[in-house]
C-alpha cells in the first residue's frame, strides 16, 4: 500500500502576524462603499498641425453624464519593460463593474499579443461572474504584472476619490 502524504500546511504565522497588526486606513474598494453620483470628464487631445490658421485649443473637454452610482476612473500610466500600460475601471456604487486596458505595449508584436491575449482573462478574473448561479470562477489566467500594477494604482485612485 502506498504511503499517504499527510502534509501539515498551516503554521499559524498569520495569527501571530494579525495579533501584532494595527489597521491602517486601507482604502479598500468594497460593495458597501456609497459612491456619490459623479460625472466623468473625458479629454481629447488635438495635435497641433503646421498651419497658418489659428490653432484650436490643445485640449477640449466634454462632460458626459453617467447613471447614478457610476464612476469611471482612468488609472495612471505604468511604464514597464515592454511599454506603457494603463487601465480604466468603472465603478457602480464602489463595486468594479468593468475594467478596460486603455493603453498597452505596442512596441513589439509579441508584447502586443501578450497584452491582447491577457485582457479578457484578467478582466473576467477581476470582475468575477455576477450571475446568481455562480459564486466564483476557478481557472488560470494569463497574468500581466504591468496590468496588475496599473489596476492596483487605479483602485488606489478610486479609493482616494471616494474619500472626497
Amino acid at each position, binding site marked *: 500500500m*502506498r*504511503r*499517504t*502524504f499527510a*502534509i501539515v*500546511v*498551516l*503554521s*499559524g*504565522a*498569520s*495569527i501571530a*502576524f*494579525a495579533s501584532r*497588526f494595527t*489597521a*491602517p486606513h*486601507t482604502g*479598500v*474598494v*468594497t*460593495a*458597501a462603499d456609497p459612491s456619490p453620483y459623479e460625472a466623468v470628464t473625458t479629454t481629447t487631445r488635438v495635435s497641433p498641425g503646421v498651419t497658418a490658421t489659428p490653432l484650436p485649443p490643445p485640449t477640449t473637454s466634454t462632460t458626459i453624464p453617467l447613471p447614478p452610482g457610476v464612476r469611471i476612473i482612468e488609472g495612471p500610466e505604468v511604464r514597464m519593460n515592454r511599454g506603457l500600460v494603463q487601465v480604466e475601471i468603472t465603478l457602480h456604487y464602489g*463595486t*468594479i463593474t468593468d475594467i478596460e486596458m486603455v493603453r498597452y505595449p505596442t512596441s513589439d508584436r509579441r508584447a502586443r499579443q501578450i497584452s491582447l*491575449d491577457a485582457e*479578457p*482573462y*484578467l*478582466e*473576467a*478574473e*477581476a470582475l*468575477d*461572474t455576477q450571475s*446568481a*448561479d*455562480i*459564486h*466564483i*470562477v*476557478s*481557472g*488560470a*489566467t*494569463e*497574468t500581466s*504584472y504591468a496590468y*496588475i*500594477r496599473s*489596476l*492596483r494604482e487605479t*483602485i488606489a485612485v478610486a479609493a482616494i476619490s471616494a474619500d472626497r
Partner: protein
Amino acid sequence: MEATRPLMGTVFRVTVPDGTSDQTVDEVFAWLEHVEADFSTFRTDSAISRIGRGELARDDAPPEVLHVLARCDELEEATGGRFRVRGGPAPLDPSGFVKGWSVDEAALIVRSAGIDDFAIYAGGDILCAGQPPDGDRWRIGIRHPERPDQNLATVLAVEGGAVATSAAYYRGNHIRGSRDGVVVSVTVTGPSLGVADALATAIFSDGAESLEFMDRFPEYGLLLLDADGTMRKTPHIVTIP
C-alpha cells in the same frame, strides 16, 4: 460584502458576511501584503530573492519562509519532481505554493474572528468555508478551456475547501478537434489551497500523463478537461448539472 485587491501579481478577493468588521478584512490584506514582501521574486530585497542569490542562509530566514520551503520540498518529493521551486526564471520560486498557502493562513485570521462562512479568491484559485449567503454549497464555475472569457465548462458544488485550476487557454485560429484528448485544464480540490495549487501545477506539467502520485493525497479530488471540454473527474467532486 467583498473586498478586492491586486497582490502577488494577481487579484485577491475576500467575501465575508455583511456586517463583518473592517478590522478582520484589513488584517487579512495586511497578512497577504506581508507574505508578498517576503516571497516576491520581483523584489530583489525579499527574503526569497536573497536566499535565491545565496545572500541569506536558509536557516536565517523568517520562520514562515522556512516553513514554506520545507512544505515545498515535501511536495517536490511527493510529486516525483513535477512540482518544483528551482529551475525557473528565478533561482528559487515557491510562488506555486505560496499563493495558496497564504490563503490557507488567511482563513485562520477570518475563523479566529468567529466567521465561519467566507470565501477567499486568489487569481483563479479559491478557498471557501461554511455556506454562501444564498444556499448551502458554494457554486464554483470552472472556465471552459476553449472559451475561457465567456463559457464555463462545469460548475462544482463545494461544501468547503480549496479549488485550484491550472490550465492553458487557446484563442484565435484553433482548429476544432486538433487537441482532442489532450488535457488542457486541471482542477484539484481538497482541504488545503497550497497543496491543491501545487498538485494542479504538477499534474498539468506533464499533461496528466502520470497520476499515480495522487494516491498519496486521498483527500484531494481531480477534474480534467480536454480542449473541447470533455470532462473526467474523481468521485470527490460534485458537479451541478
